[in-house]
């Protein structure tokens, strides 16, 4: 039986920028939830969900000792902080938006 919850319930996140590239680190609060992140929050899923603004490739790094994932998203900031007309040119709000994604606590491969 599936048990779907917002990612925000099991993880915290922070995003940062360099030029037109955004990074988004997501950490499980509890070590046992790291595997759920690893299986369900994939680079493909981010690209599918936010494809309108993620105009380049998305790469994922795994950090098992910190129970976290780091996503590097190219061409994700509409030009970057000095070029974008977006109010949030840094992409600071990314980390909060991504926590709305749902994960299934009972799902496993």
């Amino acid at each position, binding site marked *: 039986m599936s048990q779907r919850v917002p990612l*925000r*319930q099991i993880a*915290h*996140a*922070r995003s*940062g*920028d*360099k*030029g*037109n*590239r955004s*990074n988004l*680190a997501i*950490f499980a*609060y509890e070590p046992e939830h790291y595997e759920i992140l690893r299986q369900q929050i994939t680079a493909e899923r981010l690209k599918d969900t*936010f494809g*309108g*603004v*993620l105009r380049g490739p998305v790469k994922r*790094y795994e*950090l098992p*000792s*910190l129970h*976290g994932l*780091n996503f*590097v998203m190219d061409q994700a900031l*509409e030009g*970057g*902080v*000095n*070029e974008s*007309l*977006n*109010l*949030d*040119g*840094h992409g600071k*709000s*990314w980390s*909060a*938006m991504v926590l709305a994604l749902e994960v299934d606590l009972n799902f496993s491969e």
Partner: protein
Amino acid sequence: MDTQTTYRIGTGAGFSSDRLEPALDLLRHGRLDAIVFECVGERTLAFGHRDRRANPEMGYNPLLERRMRAVLPLARAAGTRIVTNMGVANPRAAARRTVEIAAELGLNGLKVAAVTGDEVSHLIGPGTHLLEPDCPLSETGREMLAANAYLGIDAILPAIEAGADVIITGRVADPSLFLAPLAHHFSWDLDDWSILGAGTAVGHLMECGAQITGGYFADPGHKEVPNLAYVGFPLAEVGADGSAVITKLESSGGLVSQRTVKEQLLYEVHDPGAYLTPDVTADFSRVGLADDGQDRVRVGHADGAVRPDQLKVTIAFDGGLLAEAEVSYAGPGAAERARVAGDIVAERMNNLHQSNGPVRIDLIGVNALHSSAVDYPAMAQDVRLRCAMRASSQTEAETLLWEVEALLCCGPAAGGGYRGHVTPSVMTYSALVDRADVRPELEIFTA
């Protein structure tokens, strides 16, 4: 940790507009060997060049005057060295101003170093390859204003060796501001990549100030932060092996936890196994964290490999004028009326005024921050229309403001609360230059 061999380094600012009071608390009560004010980003470096263009004696951090007046007496009383990139686009002018302030405060003999050589526009030409947008510079069609290389600890160490009390730089890699005093104190070899990687991890964790002590972290109901209004800035107790305890003053607000440290460890990091600075290719991929008491987290196992042969350069270009104007709608249908209003402004700008630049339309309260990423249902009843464009002339910029204000009478029903402003803008791109071509310089001023 042996206090004799522990170096105590604090953060006095984590970005250009950071708060001042937590820095003063650290200077009063932190028993610091050094304090670092990190005040340059891609955005603020661009602003520095804009300011220096308007006035050759400006271009340094606009808060330098207020910060130095408060900080210099406390730092001298505590015997704390100040390292800062508040020189931004004009370190010499910043150092001269700092010496004047020191003299006014009676701090005779204070030695202030200006570290320059990061301005490398002579190395940049039309054929220089830009990393983003991946083309030769000439294809941007824009006028280059300045180019700044990221300097490393080799630019800062001579100033420490010369006994400077205050070291003011321009563009220096942020972690290097912390690594330089550590490497000097512990006599680390400049080709011991492992120890430089460890020290760089400490610098990286500290460089954003409160972002590791509970700032940029609180999320009510999920991540609680005590007394955030009085959040303290971080203090690192660093050992000779490059490991450290990250903490804060007990009297300050905020918190230091493994969660705050983890978030900051990867902040603005791409490959955690290869974080490039001018000093080292740092490896954060196996960093270990451990609790060491209340608001104390021990950080270890950062590593490093040989430094890159090339230095990153931020190139600033004239970005024209940024014009922004806003007006609000409320009640049922607010989002629909705001959307119609935005379409009208775009229509009038592009077809009536023959404006070339696309007008960006945001509905604040609906989906402004990442409108192209998500499409929320427009249920909001309090919506602010924002129109923005990059204009090529003052007249074009003012025309946008005029058309948004004119919505009050010539747009949809019940719009109010117009505000508009025009800001000169600088755009930046990155490139690489050979390290051997960049020559850091040092000048010492004495109060």
